[in-house]
Every structure is written in C-alpha cells, then in structure tokens.
C-alpha cells in the first residue's frame, strides 16, 4: 500500500510534519549527544591520562637517570589506589622494564619512544605513552593503561537518559502536534464546512467569527467577504428572477461584469420582446376583430343565401302552379275553339236555310201579287156582272185583302230574315274572333308552358347552385369560425405573453407596459 501524502488531511499532514521534526530531534538527541559525550569523555580521559603521564614521567626522570628502580616502583605503586589504572610501566631506553605495576595486564608490544606524550585506544583500555627524559642520556618510556569500564558505564547511563528524554520529547511533541494541528486546522475546517454549504447553494449561514490576525484570520475575512459578495449576487439574481432587470451590481471583477453584462443583454432582449409582444398583441386584436367581423358577414351572407334559396324554392313552386294553370287554360282554349267552330258551322247552316226561306218567300210574295191582281180583275168583272156578281165581288175583295196580308206577312218575315242574317253574320264574325282569341290563348298558353318550363329549369339550376353556394358558404363560415377561434387563441396567448412580460422591470419608471385588452 502506497501512502499518498495528498490523501492526508491537513491536520494529518501537520501532525506528520511535526512528528517527523520531533523524531528528527529525538534521533539527533539519541545520535548526537551520546557520541559527543563519548568523544568528550574520551578526550577528558586522554587529557587526564596524558597529564598524569607527564607528571609521572617528570617524577621518574631522575629515577631513570640513576636507574633507581625502587623510587620509580614507589611512584608507580602510588597509582595502585587509582582503580582506573590497569597497569603502568617505565622502561629504559633500551626497552627493558625499570619498574612496573601489574605488568601481566600489559599486552601490547612496546612502541617506539615518542617525542611527546601520546595516547591510543585499545578495545578495553586507553594507553598513554610519554617519554621519560633524564637530564642526560636517552629517553625512557612511561606506559599507562587506563580502564574504560567506568567510561562505558557512564556512557550507558547517558544513553539510557537520552533515550528517556527522547521518548518524552517524542510523546510530548506528538501530543503538542495533535493539539497544534487541531487548533490550527479548526478554522480551516469551519471554512471547509461553510464552503461546502455554499457549494450546495446555502448562503444562509452566519459569517465566520475568527478573530485571529494571522493568515487563517485573513483567510476567514476573505471568506466572509466572498460570502457577502455571493449573498449580494444571490439577492440580485433573486430580484432578476422576480423580473427586475434594472439593477446593477456595484461590485468589481469579472463575475460582476459578466453578471451586469448578462442583465443588460437580458434587459435589452426583454425590452425587444416586450415591444414585439405589444405589437403582436395589437395585431392579434386587430385580426381577431376582423375575424369576428368576417364571421358576422359570413353568417349574414349564409342567411342571405338561405333566403334566396327559399325564394327560389317558392319561385319553383309558383312556376309549377303556373304550369298547371297554363295547362288548364290550354285545354279550355282548345275546347272554346272547338265550340266556336261548331257554332260557326251551325250559323253557316242557318244562313243557308235563311236564303232558301227568302227564295220561298219570294215565290209566296209573287203568288200573293198575282192573287191580288186576279182578285182585282175578278172584282171588276163582278161589278160588271151587277147584282149577280155582288157576292163574287165580296169574295174577290176578301181575296185581295188576304193577298195583301200575305204580302205584308212576307215583308215582315223578310225583315225578320234580314235580322236573322245580320245576327248570323255577327255571330260568324264573333265566332271567328273567338276562334282567333282561342288560337291566341292556345299559343300564349303554349309559350307560357314553354317559358315556365325554361324558367323551372333555370330556377332549378339556380336552386342547385344556391345549394352548392350554401354548402360552400357553410364551409366558409366554419373556416371563418375556426380562423376566428385560432386568432382568439393567438390573442389570448398574446395577452398572456404581455402579462408575463409585465413582470419584468426594464427601466426605472415601469416595465414592459401591460396592455389590458378586452
């Protein structure tokens, strides 16, 4: 598992950092101080050993010069009280031992005699060599062996102490780092919480109360400033949401600029839409009114056409009546003509009879004239005959009277005949007139029938056309109604749009002016 430092919390990072620092200090303590102590104590031992060796060398120089082993041994024995000293020896220049303390413990080979005091470490001891310079003659060698046990014990104790101190420092540091980390991180965590709530869109939380003057405090201040700006922005957005497009943000920066630009372009757009909506509204109202008027006109037209249709129908009925009546007239006229013809024939027959009667009357009148003449002659003869002829004369007179009466009657009959003939002529003329009239009536009736037939056909065609017109007109009325309702919807929509637009405020005086159309 790889530990990615970017996954650690800030507190974790702080704690890790401080822990690392304290660990470094502890390790430093553990590594540096014991080593330093060790070096120091070694140096101290060296100096002490070298000092001691120098003093002893000086003290034993006379003993070496005179090869007085006893005095040198005495000096060395004086060292026996010192537990540190493991062994000691003084050698002559030729390497032989003059005097020695615990010579069995000395294991090292004799080195060459150094010019000054020197020291060297063996695993368990410090060896110090010092030249013993007599006032005359070659220098001898003093060797001192110091035990390092004490030093090692001291070092161990020191190590333990340093270890404890390190552990305490580490633990305390760890605790402190926890506390410091928590204290330092708390405002950051508060800000994180606030930022998260802001990110979720909640701007209602209180501002941060961090009084510190440090970077965190300034960060909190910046945070509060940002919160206030966001609140202002949100309030502005809310007002825009309610349709107020007159506001401008008095803030600096790209966001405010973009916001103001957005509001400005929206204001312009809404203004333009408002203008369009006003125009649309009045245009829709005009079209709607026109559609209403058209609908009324169409309905009137439809009822007009219906009336014409009815009139046409009654005209057709009348034509039918006329046709029937004309047929009757035709029949009557033909019968009249026939009757008149018969009358004419009869009158003509009567005239023939009258002529023959006149001929017979002429014969009768001729006979009467002759009878009168004969009666006159008879009367004259009777007169001449005298008395004997008197009776005959009376008869003759009577006969003359009779003949005269016949002649008078014939005259009367002739007058009557003339009357009859005149009447007959008049009748014939009247019959002729009647026949002509009947002929004319028949012709007229035929023509009326023909015309009526034509009229009926024409009327039927007109009626058919009117019916078609009615169908088309009713379709037209329907279309006009549909158009009217469509335009009504358009007008309603335009009005609604105008009402919606009225919610926007685009200048200080008023918004898009609502137009309340009836």
């Amino acid at each position, binding site marked *: 598992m790889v530990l990615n430092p970017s996954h650690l919390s800030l507190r974790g990072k702080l704690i890790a950092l401080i822990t690392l620092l304290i660990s470094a200090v502890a390790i430093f303590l553990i590594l540096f101080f014991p080593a330093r102590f060790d070096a120091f104590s070694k140096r101290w031992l060296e100096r002490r050993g070298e000092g001691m060796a120098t003093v002893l060398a000086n003290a034993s120089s006379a003993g070496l010069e005179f090869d007085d082993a006893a005095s040198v041994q005495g000096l060395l024995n004086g060292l026996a009280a010192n537990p540190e000293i493991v062994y000691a020896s003084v050698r002559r220049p030729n390497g032989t031992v003059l005097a020695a303390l615990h010579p069995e413990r000395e294991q090292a080979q004799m080195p060459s005699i150094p010019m000054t005091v020197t020291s060297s470490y063996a695993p368990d001891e410090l060896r110090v060599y010092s030249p013993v310079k007599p006032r005359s003659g070659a220098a001898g060698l003093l060797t001192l062996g110091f035990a390092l046990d004490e030093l090692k014990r001291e070092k161990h104790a020191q190590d333990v102490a340093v270890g404890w101190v390190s552990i305490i420092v580490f633990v305390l540091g760890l605790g402190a780092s926890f506390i410091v980390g928590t204290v330092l991180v708390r405002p950051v965590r508060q800000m994180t919480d606030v930022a998260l709530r802001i990110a979720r869109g909640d701007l209602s939380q209180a501002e941060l109360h961090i009084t510190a003057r440090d970077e965190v405090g300034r960060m909190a201040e910046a945070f509060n400033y940002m919160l206030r700006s966001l609140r202002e922005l949100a309030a502005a957005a809310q007002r825009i949401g309610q349709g107020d497009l007159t506001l401008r943000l008095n803030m600096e920066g790209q966001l405010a600029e973009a916001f103001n630009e957005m509001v400005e372009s929206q204001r312009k757009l809404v203004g333009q839409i408002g203008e369009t909506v*006003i*125009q649309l*509204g*009045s*245009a829709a*109202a*005009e*079209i709607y*009114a*026109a559609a209403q*008027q*058209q609908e009324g*006109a169409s309905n009137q037209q439809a009822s007009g056409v219906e009336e014409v249709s009815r009139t046409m129908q009654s005209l057709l009925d009348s034509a039918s009546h006329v046709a029937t009546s004309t047929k009757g007239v035709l029949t009557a006229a033909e019968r009249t003509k026939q009757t008149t013809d018969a009358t004419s024939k009869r009158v003509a027959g009567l005239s023939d009879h009258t002529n023959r009667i006149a001929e017979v009357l002429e014969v009768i009148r001729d006979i009467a004239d002759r009878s009168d003449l004969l009666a006159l002659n008879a009367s004259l003869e009777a007169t001449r005959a005298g008395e004997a002829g008197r009776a005959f004369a009376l008869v003759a007179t009577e006969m003359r009277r009779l003949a005269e009466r016949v002649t008078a009657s014939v005259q009367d009959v002739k007058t009557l005949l003339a009357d009859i003939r005149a009447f007959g002529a008049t009748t014939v003329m009247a019959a002729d007139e009647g026949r002509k009239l009947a002929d004319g009536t028949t012709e007229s009736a035929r023509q009326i029938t023909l015309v009526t037939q034509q009229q009926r056909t024409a009327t039927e065609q007109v009626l058919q056309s009117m019916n078609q017109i009615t169908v088309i007109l009713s379709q037209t009325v329907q279309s006009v109604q549909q158009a009217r309702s469509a335009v009504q919807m358009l007008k309603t929509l335009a009005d609604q749009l105008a009402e919606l637009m009225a919610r926007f405020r685009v200048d200080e005086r008023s918004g898009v*002016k609502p*137009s*309340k*159309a*009836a």
Partner: protein
Amino acid sequence: MSVSDRRKKIVLLDDSDLIRELVREALEAEGYDIVDTATPFGFSNLLRREKPDLALLDVTMPTLRGDKLAEIAIQHGIACPIVLFSDRPAAELDAMARSVKAAGYIRKTGDMDEVVRSVARFLK
C-alpha cells in the same frame, strides 16, 4: 395654417383610394405630412412606428370597422388622438367616438375645406 417648425404628421386610414387621394391632396396643401394606408391590419403598429400627431380613421370598411380598430389601438396604449372619419350621421359618429374613447369625429361631407378646418381644430 402656416408651416410650423415641425411639420405635423397625420396618419390616414381609408379603404377608398379616391378619398385617400382627395384628403391627402387637401391636407398636404396645408403643410401636413400624410402617411396613408388602405388596410386596417397593423394600424396600431403603424401609429407606434410613425408617432403621428393625429390619426384619421374611416369607419365603414369591409375587413374591420374603424371604430373597433380605434378601440383596439386605444386599449393597446396608443396615445395619439384618433379621429373617426365617416359619412355616417353625426349623432351616430358622436356616440361611436365616445364609446371607443376616440378624440372625436369628422364627417365626410365632400367639403374638403371643412375637413381641413376640423383637422386644424383637433391639432390645436
């Protein structure tokens, strides 16, 4: 009337070409600017666009009656005075103008001088 600093503008709506021609000639001779149209559609928007000082509006038109049109225009916020212009009886025109809240009426009598005088009266 003399030509003032700003020529007064009059919008004329009449479906009769002859009437439009006559009225235009008579009013232009008096120094008015005339914008005329034969169609009632877009009348309100024409007034909005032209912003005339007066609108003369024929009443009897086949597509849309002038009084109705005036009512629509006034309801849709047209501030310009609208005068009904018709040969209908004066009483009827008066009632019509009152009903639609028009500025008034001018009768078409054929007497163009009377029309010009009436227009001047409305523009005062």
